[in-house]
């Protein structure tokens, strides 16, 4: 038998006794055996299958645990999404602030712009869209201190006032539409006309008269400091303002309500206030509970 064949058989443990004898007679038999035996020293440190399996199972269990965290987490995430949805759908509704008679209120808008609402007025705006569009709807009268930023619109029944970073009032009462700019500039869109008001400009439109522009020297409207001031305004507007500030009913007898009045009244003392609006016109007044009757002499 071939020498190589013998060695191959030996390597595969396939030698029969006779072949084994032949193999042992090979001249390099001792060398081969020595290599085969010495090579045993290179056996790796024993591999403990059970131990390694336990280790593996631990790792996998740990990984699965980590994965299981995802379930409660996704539930929480879903809940948050729903909450946000509800929250935003509420935001879609407009925020509305309104004042009663003889009440004033300050409103801080989302961009920190400040609005002072005079009595019997209401202001509404959309908090959600505020970043895209600064727009408020106004009924009545308000003083605005607008923060710098994009275009700021005040919509009233009568006209649209557009501003950029400024202080102004808008007054839209029954027969009177008045805009006074105290700082910066505003644009008034009214009756298809567009007028720009600068600091100190006053825009006024009364029922039955032509819109006109005058000047003011004031820094802020007087009602902010609890005084109502009138400059060449019909007496009916004075009476209406008085009613709003004191939440009272005024009956005017034999009085020309169209005559113009220049003057003021304060908001915290009804007697002094009554005198302020009656004495200049030589009017008499009688007062019963929530009713005041004015009479010409």
């Amino acid at each position: 038998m071939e020498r190589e064949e013998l060695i191959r058989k030996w390597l595969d443990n396939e030698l029969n006794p006779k072949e084994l004898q032949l193999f042992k007679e090979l001249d390099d038999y001792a060398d081969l055996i020595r290599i085969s035996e010495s090579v045993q020293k290179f056996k790796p440190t024993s591999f403990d299958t059970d131990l390694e399996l336990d280790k593996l199972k631990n790792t996998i269990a740990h990984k699965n645990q980590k994965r299981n965290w995802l379930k409660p987490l996704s539930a929480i995430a879903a809940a948050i999404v729903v909450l946000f949805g509800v929250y935003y759908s509420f935001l879609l509704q407009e925020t509305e602030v309104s004042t009663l008679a003889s009440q004033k209120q300050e409103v801080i808008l989302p961009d920190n712009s400040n609005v002072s609402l005079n009595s019997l007025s209401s202001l509404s705006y959309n908090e959600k869209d505020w970043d895209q569009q600064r727009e408020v709807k106004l009924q009545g009268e308000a003083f605005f201190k607008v923060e710098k930023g994009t275009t700021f619109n005040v919509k009233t029944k009568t006209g649209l006032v557009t501003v950029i970073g400024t202080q102004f009032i808008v007054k839209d009462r029954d027969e009177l539409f008045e805009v006074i700019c105290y700082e910066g500039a505003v644009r008034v869109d009214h009756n298809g006309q567009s007028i720009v008001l600068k600091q100190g400009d006053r825009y006024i439109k009364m029922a039955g008269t032509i819109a006109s522009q005058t000047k003011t020297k004031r820094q802020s409207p007087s009602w902010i400091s609890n005084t109502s001031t009138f400059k060449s305004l019909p007496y009916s507007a004075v009476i209406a303002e008085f009613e709003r500030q004191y939440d009272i009913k005024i009956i005017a007898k034999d009085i020309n309500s169209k005559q113009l009045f220049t003057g003021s009244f304060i908001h915290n003392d009804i007697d002094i206030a009554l005198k302020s609006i009656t004495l200049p016109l030589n009017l008499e007044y009688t007062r019963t509970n929530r009713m005041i009757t004015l009479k010409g002499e």
Partner: protein
Amino acid sequence: MSKNLHKNICEETLYSNFFKKYADDLHSFLYYKFGDHLNPKDKVQEAFIKVWENCKNITPEKAKNYLFTVGNNLMLNEVKHQKVVLKFQQEKPKSHTNENPEFLMEEHEYSQKLQKAIASLTEAQRVAFLLNRIEGKKHKEIALLLDISTKAVEKRIYGALKKLKEQIHEL
């Protein structure tokens, strides 16, 4: 083992059995191929974790090949064709030895020569030869494990032995 009844190896006992059957072999394979400095035991763990993570896509028939390929790749990611030097266990000094120091020294020198010789084998030769000599595996078993023919295994082992003998004589 009802191998063909299972579509994949996600079932726990099946997976455990798979581990028991091949973990040791994979370890030997990686050890002999790449040496011990790349932590073959860790690679065995990693390879089996990969198998578990992908168990849905692995049929029982393909699992072994997948496992060995993954194990091999994990090693290749780290190895930069360093020379594989297998550590040999130092002879424990026997308490009652009548072997003389000269013999012990000669023995140690021989081990060192053998170590160098093993390092000079090709990966294929070394894996086949050591699986055969140290793990006592038959040629047919090695052929199955490495997915090669029995003839190729014989050739590798015989080639390895021949080379070792020559190298030791030269050194």
